[in-house]
């Protein structure tokens, strides 16, 4: 089943066409990679899907529902979560609190309840904390739960971002260059983590420059160049595609 489908999505900034009629379909349960040279429009595409930007043209549907025009928090509540290329944690909150905030879309205690701190709210806070703790365990950060996010190492911050995104119980997880700045061992761990997330039933759309990661875990690869989709296929097909080689290496 197609989970996320975009048709004809275009976004222009001033005179620069960041996205040009992009059509991408992400099947449920797959790991799909979005690759392309710098400035190809990959992050802009993520921003359009998550409601940060409104595309100038085109349609985005998620689980057959139109997504364009919805606020970011509404899209998150529909089941799309993301991480960022430049890490954007809540620096002055603990790792555990970051994940608990990530679960915000899920918890339902109203304003009055939170203000009055009824027993039910306390109960919910406890459930939330234990769920957040499980997610920290899932990404291997249990011993860092009470540390401020800004005091975590780079690799730990990346994993915390993933845990926070997972806290919203997403159906689709968008990862923006999760391996950036990681050493080979951390990258291996990350690939294992991404596979484990998929095993939990979460579909993954991934922007990545590390070709070892892309070719190692993707079911499908989509290539953007200058805002246009120039190729799509299995990792093997993409590696042989002359247009892709040209986009990356230039014509000879």
């Amino acid at each position, binding site marked *: 089943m197609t989970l996320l489908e975009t048709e004809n999505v275009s976004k222009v900034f001033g005179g620069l066409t960041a996205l040009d009629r992009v059509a991408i379909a992400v099947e449920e349960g797959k790991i799909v990679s979005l690759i392309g040279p710098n400035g190809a429009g990959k992050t802009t595409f993520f921003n359009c899907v*998550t409601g*940060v930007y409104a595309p100038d043209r085109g349609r985005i549907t998620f689980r057959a529902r139109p997504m364009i025009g919805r*606020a*970011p*928090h509404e899209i*998150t*509540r529909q089941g799309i*979560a*993301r991480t*960022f290329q430049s890490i*954007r944690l*809540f*620096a*002055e*909150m603990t790792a555990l*609190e970051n994940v*608990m*905030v*990530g679960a*915000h*879309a*899920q*918890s339902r*205690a109203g*304003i009055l309840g*939170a*203000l009055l*701190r009824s027993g039910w*709210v306390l109960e*919910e*806070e406890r459930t*939330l904390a234990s769920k957040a703790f499980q997610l920290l365990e899932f990404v291997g950060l249990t011993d860092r739960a009470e540390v401020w996010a800004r005091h975590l190492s780079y690799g730990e911050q990346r994993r915390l971002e993933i845990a*926070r*995104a997972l*806290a*919203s119980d997403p159906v689709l997880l968008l990862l923006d260059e999760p391996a950036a700045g990681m050493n080979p061992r951390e990258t291996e761990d990350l690939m294992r983590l991404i596979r484990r997330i998929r095993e939990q039933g979460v579909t993954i759309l991934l922007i990545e420059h590390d070709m070892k990661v892309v070719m190692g875990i993707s079911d499908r690869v989509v290539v953007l160049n200058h805002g246009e989709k120039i190729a799509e296929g299995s990792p093997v097909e993409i590696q042989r595609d002359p247009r892709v080689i040209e986009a990356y290496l230039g014509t000879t």
Partner: protein
Amino acid sequence: MLLQQIVNGLALGAVYALIALGYTMVYGVLELINFAHGEIYMIGAYLGILLLTFFTAVGLTQHHLVLSLFLVFVGAALYCAGYGLTLERVAYRPLRHANRLSPLISAIGMSIFLQNYVMLAQGSTDKVFPHLLPSEPVAVLGVPISLLQIFIILTSIFLMIGLSLFVKKTRLGKAMRATAQDKRMAGLVGIDINKVIAITFVIGSILASAAGVMVAIYYGLVNFFIGYVAGIKAFTAAVLGGIGNIPGAMAGGFILGLVESLGAGYLSSEYKDVFAFLILIVVLILRPSGLLGEKASEKV
């Protein structure tokens, strides 16, 4: 004399701290100085006097003092929360993405509007009300302190502890801190930013209303202009503690109250405002981000 001035300073500081919290919390989530916040406090004080007068007229305060005080606090809190909510909706939300100066001017405009509106509605003369609680000091462990001062200090501390627990422990409190740190990211993790901002105004207004009611009971007197001076003082307290920082606003309020009270007692009561602002200037020169502020605030 010294202990007496310290007690006076703590009571005064508690009021400053409660109002300062509203400034600092709104600054935290919006990076906006809500200059109309002092008027919310003034409206709270008016409501305190009006409700007390009403409860006395119907004979409630004579028989059930605690109940009537409670009702006065709740009534003022609800009324001021409504004002805070409306203020945000009408004066600030439409300007959320406008140039930085526009909401500031809107804030000053709302402040002038509310002052004049209250003056027209309630008259420009002082409204007075007889003292409800004995204001003569009694000696507690050798310290001369009035029942009213104990009441003000304890109520303020109770509210501040409540606020700290709320911000630290609850889901909404975490959402508020997340919004203050990174608004766009907060939206992306599913937080409804507009709701968080509205609630921030509501909480700030409730705290200011409590301060207003207590001052009304303390002095037994209000006029339409009290929000201006108190607002400036509380804003000073917030900057002193580090604007955007909640414990900072509390500390700033108490420090300011103590400085004023000690300055008035030992040097000259006519210059007490000068001491307050002198402290502010010294802190801003030595520590521009305030006593507890971490980030240098480029936005003030």
